[in-house]
């Protein structure tokens, strides 16, 4: 009995470094195993894909808000790259926005890197607007004319010199707006954009904030939602099956996601079993 007690105490109070090593290995080792190749997309991710295809059919540009910083890079950058690959492969022009100061250079680099893959030219096929504070006012003014808030693009050129922007004025000239963010910015887009100007709006969010956007999906204020790394993997899976585009980091990380999740579930189960065994033993002693 005292041996059992000792093991129980040891396991219940196990050094946290042991837990850290187990979770690290569960994430690192799957990279050396066979990768996950097929993920079934959910209806909200499929809705985003369909809307993007509609943008290609109507030949209208789209807006993507790259509102993330390095702290949410792992979840949102694969999403951003998948959306950009889809857009550029279907010759959809992209206007990039940014309201998170720490993510400005990140967004500019991501756009340039993916554009290079498809031979797209800055100013003709895509353009990136600089960071501005007071995003609520900027989004509101965008609905009238984005030139009220922006006088030049990120590289410093006046907007009049950008060929892509010559016939564009406000949300009506774009097929849809996508916001990729780990903050409350998608809600701000809805409040100051969708409510007044009624454009099609899609969110790519971190998994942490996903549950709070489902009311907007149900009410129709949002038409699609891509959630975290799994959402990115689902979108990449759609691109692979329908357009034969290569998958990216979203799909690459799914094997590690699988093992990481299983380890956490096992920890929860074992932790609870040990807790109840210990509680029963204490009751027996009493």
């Amino acid at each position, binding site marked *: 009995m005292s041996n059992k007690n000792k093991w129980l105490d040891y396991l219940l109070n196990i050094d946290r*470094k042991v837990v*850290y090593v187990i*979770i*690290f290995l569960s*994430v*690192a080792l799957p*990279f*050396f195993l066979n990768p996950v190749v097929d993920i079934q997309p959910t209806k909200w991710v499929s809705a985003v894909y369909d809307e993007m295809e509609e943008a290609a059919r109507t030949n209208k540009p789209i807006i993507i808000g790259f509102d993330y910083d390095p*702290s*949410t*890079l*792992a*979840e949102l950058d694969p999403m951003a790259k998948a959306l950009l690959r889809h857009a550029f492969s279907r010759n959809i022009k992209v206007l990039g926005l940014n309201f998170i*100061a*720490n993510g*400005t*250079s990140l967004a500019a680099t991501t756009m340039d890197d993916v554009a290079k893959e498809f031979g797209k030219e800055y100013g003709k096929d895509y353009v990136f607007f*600089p*960071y*501005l*504070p*007071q995003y*609520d*006012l900027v989004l*509101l003014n965008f609905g009238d004319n984005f030139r009220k808030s922006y*006088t*030049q693009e*990120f590289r*410093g050129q006046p907007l009049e010199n950008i060929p892509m922007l010559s016939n564009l004025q406000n949300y009506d000239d774009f097929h849809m707006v996508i916001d990729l963010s780990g903050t409350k910015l998608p809600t701000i887009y*809805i*409040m*100051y954009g*969708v*409510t*007044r100007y009624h454009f099609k709006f899609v969110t790519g969010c*971190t*998994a*942490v904030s*996903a*549950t709070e956007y489902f*009311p907007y999906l*149900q*009410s*129709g*204020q949002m038409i699609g939602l891509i*959630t*975290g*790394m*799994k959402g990115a993997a689902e979108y990449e899976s759609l691109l692979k099956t329908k357009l034969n585009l290569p998958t990216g*980091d979203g799909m*690459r*990380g799914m094997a*590690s*996601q699988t093992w*990481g*999740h299983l380890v*956490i579930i096992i920890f929860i189960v074992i932790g609870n079993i040990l807790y109840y065994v210990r509680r029963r033993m204490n009751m027996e002693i009493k």
Partner: protein
Amino acid sequence: MSHDPWVWVAAFFTIAIFSYLWKENPLYRFAEHILVGISVGYLVCITWFNVLQPKLVEPIMNNGEYVLIIPGIMAALMLFRFSQKIGWISFWPLAFLIGFSGYAIPTVIETNMLTQIQATVNIPLTGGWFEIASGLLIIVGTLACLVYFYFSYPHKGVVGKTAQFGSMLLMISFGASFGFTVMARISLLIGRVLFLLRDWLGVVS
């Protein structure tokens, strides 16, 4: 293995931050303090090139829009925040910015109240019994959760039972949130491990 020196720098800082898991150490503190200094410097440059230069300096110097000197002065007045005696001057530009929340009042009411209530009321209770029950769950569930948050009336009797049902739905929602949070956290770790194994060491494709 990468030959890019910046990848090696990135790998060094990644490992330095990871070393915190062992225990707090000078390597971690070194990386942390560099991050703070560089972040603030980054913010200054981004704000200068993206906001102040194109919207304040260039219009005044090149286009003669001297009226913009007023918001420039107001922005400078915010620095009086650091003075004990005349710090109240910093409230003036702050008051100007806060006033814009007046637009948020009707916007929030329309976006997060009226449209949401409309969507709840307009749920089509059609289809099989399961679809109807699920639709009713949203209507009744939203009311129940709102009752749960109403603390001006004691949660007893019918009100108590309704609030209890609301709290059950909240627990299901928070459980879903927790499940997503696990994926979010593991994703962040996957990002760093992929960088170390692929971009730095080159041992995975």
